[in-house]
Every structure is written in C-alpha cells, then in structure tokens.
C-alpha cells in the first residue's frame, strides 16, 4: 500500500524536558491509523509536529516518499495535510461557512451565497444541520466539533489528523463520524486518529501505534490484538473491567429544582438529587444539559423556577453564592470556562479552596492540598509550579476536577466528567465519583458517553429539545432506551418503562 506519510526518529523536548523520544510513525493511503496513549504521553505533540506547528529537535518527515521540512501549518496544508485540533480552533465571530473555508475562500471579494453553497455538502456529510450562515459562537461545542471536521473535509486533504475528534460528541454524532471516516478512507485518504475510546478504535482503526511517556511502544494491526493487550501497551498493566455502579446509600434530598426555565434554552426542568446519589442528564447535542447545569450553579440567569438546597431555597443564585452553599461545578468547556491558562497548576487547583477559606496562599497549605490531589488523579507532569497551559488536555481536565475535590462540596455538578481523559485515569475517576457519593455528596452530571452514564448513574434523566423527556432508573437503563428517549423515537408502545 502507498505510504502517505512517514516520520522517523522524532525527538522533541520542551525546555529541556523530552516529550517525544525517537518516535517513528507511518501512514498508508486508505487506512485509519490510531494513536493511543495516556494523557500526556505525547500524542498531541507528535501530531503538531506532523502538522508543522512544532519543529522536531531531530528526526525526519516525509510525505509521499519525499522528505519535507514543515515550518508552519501552511507548509503542511501545501503537502495535503489537514488537522482537527484537540482544543477547538474556530473563530467565534465568523459564520460556519467562513470558518470552514478560512484561508481557502478563493477570490478576494467574498460571495456569501457561493461560500454557503460550497460548504453545504460538507456540512451534510458530517450531518450538521445548522445554517452555514450561523456565527460559530452560537453553536454548542459538539456542533463546533462537527464544523472542524467539515473544515478538514473542505481542504480535500490526503492526510487528515484528528486529535480527539469525538471528545464532546454523543453516540449519534459519533456514528456520523464513522461514516465520514469510512467514506474518506474509501477514496484513499489516510487518517491519523487519536481517541481515548476503545470502541472507536475497535470500529475504525486498521493499525494502532501506542506511545508511552514519549516513547514508541509499538505499532500493531488492530486485528492482531485485543483491547487488553492495547491497554497493557499503553499503561504497562492491565485494568479492571468497567462494571456497574456500586449499591449506594441515599440520604435526604440535597438539591431540588422545580420548573426551571429560560426561553430558548430549556423549560420546566424539575429534578431532585439525594445525598449519595448520582443523577445523570443524558441527551443529544444541544438538548440543553449544559444550560441546565450552568443555570443551577447560577452561571447563567433563569427566568422561571426555583432551586432548593437541603430544603432551603436559593433565590438569585450566583456561582459565588452557590459555592458558599456547598455546590461545586465542573464545566464542559475547559479552555474557556475551566482553566486560567497562564496561571500555575497549583493556583488553578486552589482557586476554590482559597475562596472557601480552607487554604491560604502559603506554601505549606499548597503543599498539603495540591500534591496529594495531583498524585491521586495522576496529573502529569507532577509539577504544581508549571503553567497549566503547558499540560496536555487530559491533564488539564484532571486539575479542574481536583479543584473541587480539594475544596470539597455537598452537591457536585459535573458536565462531561471525563472529556479527554485516558482509559486508565477514567477508571480512577469513576472510582473517585463512587467515593464521593459514598461520602454523601449529591452528584448531578451530564454525560454524552453512554457507557459512562450506565456505569455511574443511579438515575438517568433524559433531555430532549430543552425538556425532560423521561427518567430511567438504574434497572431500566440501557443504551437503547436512553437513545430512544433522547431522539423521541416513538417506542412507547412496546416499552412501558419509557413514560415520562
């Protein structure tokens, strides 16, 4: 098979710390080559090197058999390479069409009608039904991710690099993705695919390369290995299989929300969460889960409804008030709502503990709280003084989790708890959530990953188009039932459990 891209003996270090050590990688026409590794293993760094964003310290790259020196993304594009970045790279003020075509608009004078027409097929191909003239700032993260994919398609690249393209997609869009990827590979495009989801690897990959700690552990044909073997390669040990949630003891109602609404976003949301219970909001993209969580936390205003904490009403909530009343919130969009990029890891982690008054800025307090959290969540590199910007995506997510673990809370709202987190850490985080619940924390979470929803939830509330479409107990829940409620597929007749 034709070799589209080859990288040999790539070394890369940041400020003297090696991140890639003698890594080799090849991509063939028509294949999906998955790149696996723990958070911080160096996947994004390798991809950025292939895309001309980093220059390797040593090593060679060749495209189509010819050696190339990529000094910028522009060079990479000229070689027929496109990339979907782990952190979304869209321009909020521009429309979907403008973003998709950015840099490839053609003539100086823009013809919106033509641009819209040009991108429509790509939007259809990825199954995005927004008008091409919509400003991107108005899309949800998931929709934005689809725009990124459409953008790569529009470049008609021979090589497409996808860095966690599904990290905020729901099952349905992921299916869409599979279809797109298959269509592309059928035409000879080679795809480099990074994901922490083994089902995706299972579904798509032809070959798999595993990185561990910046080193090339091996490249294998997917057919030849089992999932366990891959995990073994990634983390150097085998992992416990994911099970069902443990039996939990539920206490009193901690959080009660009644008839919450905001026009255009969600309506008539009523729910309760008890101490020690994990309740999950499930649904499709744009169903309004994020909006509900933010509204409960007081991050956005509401126009109707009430929120009660431990039986006491919480009128006009703001994040500061809710925090003081013991509510925690982990946002979905870590880049814009989670991290303070230029601040140190320790500061990012301690913000809430400081506000709560359980820690001071003294080194002693920092050491007391920060180090154990970093160890427990396996944040790497284990350097509290590093600016968080330099951490890998998954590790940033862990720091945001740690922020609330350190501060402690009675009610925890989590939007997509494991976005971008590797398998090994994911298992750790599930255990952590179990522990929190066991300590009596009431947890309300939103998740787009159905296995995760099933693994963690005591009850599942399914949202559709801003309303609650139904509730499933742990016993009733299955992927099919959740999806049926989320899409509104008319299956009530043969499944009595699905009445709202």
């Amino acid at each position: 098979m034709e070799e589209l891209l080859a990288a040999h003996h790539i070394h890369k270090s940041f400020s003297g710390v090696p991140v890639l050590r003698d890594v080799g990688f090849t991509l063939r026409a028509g294949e999906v080559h998955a790149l696996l590794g723990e958070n911080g293993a160096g996947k994004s760094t390798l991809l950025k090197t292939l895309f001309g964003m980093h220059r390797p310290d040593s090593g060679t790259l060749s495209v189509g058999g010819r050696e190339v020196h990529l000094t910028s993304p522009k060079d990479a594009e000229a070689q027929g390479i496109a990339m979907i970045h782990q952190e979304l790279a869209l321009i909020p003020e521009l429309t979907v069409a403008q973003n998709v075509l950015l840099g490839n608009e053609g003539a100086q004078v823009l013809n919106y009608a033509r641009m819209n027409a040009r991108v429509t097929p790509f939007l259809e191909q990825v199954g995005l039904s927004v008008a091409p003239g919509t400003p991107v700032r108005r899309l949800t993260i998931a929709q934005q991710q689809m725009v990124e994919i459409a953008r790569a398609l529009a470049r008609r690249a021979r090589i497409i690099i996808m860095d966690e393209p599904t990290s905020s997609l729901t099952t349905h869009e992921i299916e869409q993705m599979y279809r797109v990827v298959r269509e592309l590979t059928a035409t000879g495009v080679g795809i480099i695919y990074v994901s922490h989801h083994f089902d995706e690897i299972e579904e798509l990959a032809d070959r798999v390369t595993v990185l561990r700690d910046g080193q090339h552990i091996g490249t294998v044909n997917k057919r030849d290995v089992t999932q366990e073997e891959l995990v073994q390669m990634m983390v150097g040990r085998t992992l416990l299989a994911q099970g069902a949630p443990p039996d939990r003891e539920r206490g009193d109602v901690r959080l009660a929300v009644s008839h919450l609404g905001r026009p255009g976003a969600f309506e008539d949301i009523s729910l309760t969460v008890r101490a020690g219970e994990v309740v999950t909001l499930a649904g499709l993209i744009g169903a309004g889960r994020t909006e509900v969580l933010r509204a409960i936390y007081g991050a956005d205003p509401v126009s109707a409804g009430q929120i009660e904490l431990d039986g006491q009403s919480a009128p006009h909530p703001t994040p500061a008030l809710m925090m003081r009343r013991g509510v925690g919130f982990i946002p979905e969009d870590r880049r814009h709502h989670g991290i303070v990029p230029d601040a140190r890891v320790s500061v990012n982690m301690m913000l809430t503990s400081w506000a709560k008054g359980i820690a001071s800025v003294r080194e002693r307090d920092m050491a007391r709280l920060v180090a154990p959290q970093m160890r427990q969540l396996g944040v790497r590199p284990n350097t509290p003084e590093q600016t968080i910007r330099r951490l890998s995506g998954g590790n940033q997510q862990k720091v945001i989790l740690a922020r609330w673990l350190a501060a402690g809370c009675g009610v925890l709202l989590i939007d997509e708890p494991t976005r971008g987190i590797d398998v090994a850490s994911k298992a750790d985080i599930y255990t952590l959530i179990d522990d929190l619940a066991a300590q009596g924390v009431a947890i309300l979470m939103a998740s787009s990953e159905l296995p995760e929803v099933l693994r963690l939830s005591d009850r599942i509330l399914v949202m559709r188009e801003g309303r609650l479409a139904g509730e499933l107990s742990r016993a009733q829940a299955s992927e099919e039932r959740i999806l049926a409620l989320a899409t509104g597929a008319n299956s009530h007749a043969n499944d009595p459990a699905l009445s709202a």
Partner: protein
Amino acid sequence: MQMTQPSAPNAGRAAMIERLREAGILAILILGAVAFSFTVPSFFSVDNAITGIGLSAAINTIVAIGLTYVIMTGGIDLSVGSTAALSAVIGADLMQRGLPPLVAILAALAVGAVAGLVNGLLITRVQLAPFIVTLGTMTFYRGLALSYTNGQPILSLPDSYKQSLGGTVLGLPIPLLAALALVAAFSLILKFTKTGQYILAIGGNAEAVRLSGINVDRFITLTYVISGVLAAFAALILIAQLGAAEPILGNGWELSAIAAAVVGGTSLSGGKGNVVGALLGALLLSMLQNVLTLLGVQAFYQLLATGLIIIGAMVIDRYTRGR
C-alpha cells in the same frame, strides 16, 4: 438531521440583538437630536448639522475607522495624532515648495503609510506590545513633525488645495462626503473581502487563523498601515479647512477616535468591530460638543456634562441592548 436542534430562530434572534446594538446608539443620536432641536436654539438646521457637527465628526470618523480596524485585531494605535501631524506638515511643506497639491497629497498619505508600517513591523516582527510601540512612535513622530518645521506652523496653503479638499459637492462639504464614503468602503471591506474577514478573525482567535495557514502578521501590519493612511487623510482634510498645517496638530486624536470606536460597539479586546458604529459614535460625540457650545455652557461645566453624557449614553445603550 432531526437530531440537532433547529438553530435558525436562535440565530435570527441573536442577529436582531446585534442590529439593536447599532440601533441603540442610533436611537440615542436621534432622540438627542430631536430633544436638542427643541431646546437648543439653532441646533436644528441643515447648516448646523452639516458644518457644525459634520466637520469634526468627519475627521474623528476617518481616524476612528482606522482605529476600529486596529482594535479589531486586539491592538491599539496611539500614534494617529502624531502621524497626522507629520503627514500634514510634510504635505504642506511640499505644497509650499511649489509641488502640485495632488503630489503633496500622495506624499502625505505615503508618510502616513510608512508611519503605520513602522508600527506594524515593530509589533509583528519584534513582537512588542502595540500600546508601547505606538506610545513610543506617538512621541517620536511628534518630535519628527516638530523638528521638521522647527515648531512653526506652515501657513498659506494654495487655494486650489483648500478648495479641493475643503470644498463642497452638491452643497455637501467634501470632508463629510469623504467620511461617509470611507465608512461605506471599510464597512464593505470588513464584510465582503477576505482581508476584512481575516482581520476580524485575527481578533477573535489569532492562533486559529495562523493554524489555517494565513499570514497573520501581514494582516496585523496592514491594519496599522490603514490607520496611518487614514490619519494622514484626516489631517489633509483638516489643514484644507484651517488653511495651515502645524506640527502640534492632532493632539488627543487617539482618545477621541478610540472613544468613537468603543461607543460605536467595537470591543477593545478585539474580535468585534463596527465601522458604521464608529461613525455613529463620532457623530454622538460631536453633537455633544456642538450642543454644549451652542448652549454656551461654561468651561468647567462642559467637562462635567461631557463626562456625564458619555457615560449616560453608554448606560442607555447597555440597557436598550438588554442583558
């Protein structure tokens, strides 16, 4: 796909709110104008509107267009006033030495372009903060203008020149027409050209634009060149009116122009810009000055009133836009 939410109504509402933002200032402008025409003698006359508010608004608008472009990329240009002075004295000097006005005009615009280019290159190539670069060149260009003329004004520009840029067409003064034409042009560039789109995009997420393979530095530099050329052009218009070019001309232009741009809805953190808004902002500020003068408000109270009205207008604007 039935799976994603219908987004059209959503988008429509947001776009409407967007338009309301412009409309907010427009409403303040119109309401103010109506109120003043009942209370302030001679406020409501075509002549007052055109010559009284027009000229200073025209000059401020032209400078503010350039600043809008610069600010959209997340930058700032404090050197516009000094650039204006430098271009003006060089242009005027050339005319005094007998060169035809057209040549002098082109030379002055070229001076503005070079001044902007220097700013742009220092910002993009040497990667210095726009504020500090243009603070430095603000001082430097002013020094150049003063030493070029030895501090003296250049008087008695040729009449042909004064009539060209200072004259009227169909009864409308050329400065006003020029400002309107430039607003239209730069509005269209922003909306309908790649260049405009890139400039807007750079302010929104420069890194993403760079990742799209676009030469971000070139477009940032371009905005400073535009700002320099427009400052020079505003200066040319002003000296045609005043009949003299002086090296201290343009003092404080940067503040008024930034104010016009910001009042008009351009965000100082970049990524959002509105050329028509800059025009409305400039009109609002000039109307304010005009009314205070017509009312004969005393010096100290003028300051009080100006401050109050600027903030008042922004508060009204804020609440008409809604939360």
